[in-house]
């Protein structure tokens, strides 16, 4: 890798870091006012077209951050960098939705990651990914306390994101087992604002609650893989994330109509617990051409429910789970006895229960995916585009259902490293 490449990589990282902050400007997500926001289910990598199914998936070119054990499969001395962005179109349905405005769209950065095969059996990766996001706004007219007739308006809004910077390492043993560990640093700020407006919309007072979250979050993974005869290969994977207490620092700022500070208090720090998370996955590949994958993930929010004090009221946290299945067709060509992938097609389905239970309804998320990727032979780049249609939530019990359509773009850059400037094809 040349010094100029290092500069470019640094610039990319910087851009992404800034953009992760800007993600809060995206589509409204009404359920994000609860808990610590909308938890991110996607990995925005090669497995996105497989409904993010990839706990047992391995790749010698792409960074499969579904399981930290996967990085040992990177090609020797291979440096790779990936970035992803997503365009989302959402249609909202339900009683709380104003029929005059039911759609929104945005486009946001989702991920930046780098990885390298440090030695023959050791792969490593660093990256920055969203962990949860909060983005909502709504108005609540209310009668001023003490007055029987006067109406004012609460304009509630919440913006912010919690991100994860990680460093993952994996090591391969006996050519059939890979073990990995990911040290994630969760950090971010959720900004909740309550603006009281007069009848003419003028701000009378605003209360801003900032919650800063941070702590380490460890994830461990393992993959076992092998061949069955000449044509079939198999893989089994598992992940485990150890529960962690996020240190939550609260600050409450109250500003008057003239923006004068009425109160600015740092409140007592608390901990918000992230639960134990489990995941298992399977993969089956035929002739390096067809691949079937399946995942099941489970987060034990019930176990940490009592400890957590989340913003808001009248909803509860429940253990979440997600099942997914994917199928991939990979088109390869043989060069000098090596099979090189030219393109691939993916599809997948998923179904899950989120960690929010509102009005007796656990918020469900389900959908289908399809993706297509091309690996350039003339350049070190690979591209993929993935489509995802899904349904989240329900219109029952006065809730909101989101019908969303995502278009994900993945750009992968790869180069041979540690060759003293010479690259080989």
């Amino acid at each position, binding site marked *: 890798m040349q010094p100029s*490449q290092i500069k470019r990589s640094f610039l*990319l990282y910087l851009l*992404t870091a800034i*953009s992760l902050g*800007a*993600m809060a*400007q*995206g*589509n409204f997500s*009404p359920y994000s*006012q609860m808990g610590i926001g909308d938890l991110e289910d996607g990995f925005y990598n090669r497995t996105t077209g497989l409904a993010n199914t990839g706990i047992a998936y391995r790749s010698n070119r792409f960074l499969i951050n579904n399981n930290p054990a996967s990085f040992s499969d990177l090609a020797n001395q291979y440096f790779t960098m990936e*970035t992803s*962005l997503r365009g989302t179109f*959402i249609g909202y349905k339900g009683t*709380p*939705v*104003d029929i005059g405005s*039911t*759609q*929104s*769209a945005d*486009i*946001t*950065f989702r991920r930046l990651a780098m990885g390298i095969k440090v030695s023959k059996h050791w792969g490593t990766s660093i990256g920055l990914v969203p962990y949860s996001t909060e983005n*909502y*706004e*709504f108005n*609540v007219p209310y009668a*001023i*306390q*003490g*007055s029987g007739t006067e109406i*004012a308006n*609460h304009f*509630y809004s919440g913006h912010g994101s919690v991100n994860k910077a990680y460093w993952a390492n994996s090591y391969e043993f006996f050519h059939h087992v890979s073990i990995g560990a990911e040290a994630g640093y969760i950090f971010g700020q959720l900004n*909740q604002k*309550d603006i*009281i407006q007069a009848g003419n919309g003028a701000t*009378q*007072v605003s*209360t801003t*609650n900032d919650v800063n979250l941070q702590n380490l979050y460890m994830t461990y993974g393992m993959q076992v893989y092998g061949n069955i005869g000449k044509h079939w290969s198999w893989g089994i994977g598992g992940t485990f994330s150890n529960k962690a207490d996020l240190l939550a620092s609260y600050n409450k700022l*109250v500003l*008057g*109509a003239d923006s004068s500070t*009425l*109160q600015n208090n740092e*409140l*007592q720090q608390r901990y918000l617990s992230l639960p134990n998370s489990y995941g298992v996955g399977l993969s089956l590949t035929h002739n390096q051409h067809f691949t079937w994958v399946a995942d099941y993930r489970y987060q034990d929010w019930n176990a940490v429910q009592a400890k957590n004090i989340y913003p*808001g*009221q*009248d909803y509860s946290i429940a253990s979440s789970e997600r099942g997914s299945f994917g199928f991939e067709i990979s088109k390869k060509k043989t060069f000098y006895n090596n099979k090189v992938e030219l393109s691939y097609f993916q599809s997948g389905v998923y179904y899950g229960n989120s960690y929010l239970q509102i009005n007796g309804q656990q918020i469900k998320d389900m959908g289908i995916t399809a993706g297509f990727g091309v690996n350039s032979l*003339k*350049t*070190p*780049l690979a591209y993929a585009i993935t489509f995802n249609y899904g349904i989240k939530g329900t219109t029952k019990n006065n809730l909101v259902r989101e019908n969303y359509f995502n278009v994900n773009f993945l*750009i992968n*850059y790869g180069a041979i490293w540690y060759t003293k400037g010479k*690259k080989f*094809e």
Partner: protein
Amino acid sequence: MTIHKYPRKKLLFLFSSLLAVFFLTSCQKQPTLRFGNLYTDDNNGSNVVVVDTSTVLVSTIYSDSTFTDGTGFLMAGTYKDPILGTVTSRAFFQITPPAGLPSLIPGINTYDSIGLVIFFKKNNPWYGDTTSLQNYVINQVDTAYQLSPPFLNGYFSNSDLRINPDKLGETGPIFIYPSRLDSAPLTSQGISDTIKIRLDQSLGQRLFNMVYSNSDSINNPTGFQNWFHGLCLSTDGIGTGGTGAIYGFKDTCLMRIYYRTAGVFAQQYIDFNITQKSLAFNSIRTNYDNTALKIIQKTTGYYGQTPQAYPSKATGNAGYIQPITGLNVRLRFPTIKSIALRPDYIGLLRATLTVRPVPDSWSTTWRLAPQIGVYTTDQNNLLGTPVPASGLSGAQTGGLVVDYFNPQNAAYTYDVTSFVKAIITNNATNSDSLGLILTVPPPNNVADFRRVVVADQSFQVNQRTTLSVYYISLFPHN
């Protein structure tokens, strides 16, 4: 094996795309959702709480006099207000001969008559019962009319000049129609806005002779005023057919001597115009017998002394605003500081003062003052500075809402945020004496009899004067 060429164009494209996306993140529309209010913690954010139960102490401040000279109006009449009793106003003014007097020739010019012409213009002030027949009377002032003790500082409402009890003239019973259309005459004399009063013939003859003889007293204005002094316009009581009224006439009246010239048919006259308008004043007398204000002591004080305050409990559970007769209302708020002591109080948002007239105290006859200003005051009960609305400058006038069908809805409303902000957390020893004065703003404070009877807190909630304090509430959090 070949050395790989790095694809610079593609990398440039990649970076450009990323930059473009970064800027596009804010370019999106959003739905309108009414979701989430059930799940919002009410105590997490601040709220607005209104307290409209603060004690408002209403008092009537009585000043024994007001400046009524040079107001631009000669106010004359008497009315009997069912609430404020009998009010009488007499106008004193001076006239002066014209600069160029005609040369009169014996046998050719002969005296005819003399009269006073006064004008009631549209929109001039008036108050009372317009169905009363009024008889306007003119008397000659019988004393020196000049700025010398006791009138060194000008003339006040309680000033008086001795007059010759013999009338110089009177209109006889007439009506004035102040609300008539422009095309119709405003008086029953039928001459547009003009009222003519025939004056004593002997006075006219004497003045005619003085002109004829080129008397020094009529050639010299000062000499004329030393001799003639001035005139007093009044009525002989409340009149007949009603409860009386006071009308304000323009201070452009004139005294006219009519004479004839042999062989000339055209009307000829000499006009004596009003002069020294700044010394023309209205002398006002009130009689509070058999009213709630009968306890008021009308002692004559010195200029600037502390006017006495009469609590509303002693004056029929009301305060009274009629500054031309010396009545203003003071408001105090003895419990307002307790709001700031509430555990959830973190700041004042705004404060609104609603002044409500006693519902049956006003009507189309006993009209409300259209503008009432709000001013600061202290323990001296003197008028302070106007209380401006938040973010604005200048005095407020209350924005009177009149509803004749639902008189309890009539109200003057003020933004008194700046005043409440100054006292709600004020621990100075004299802060409890700070208050507000309600009065008619200039110039009507000395040229208008329209009044307000302010309801105190003995009235039911929606008919009393209230102070609504909107404060920002936030309960303590750990």
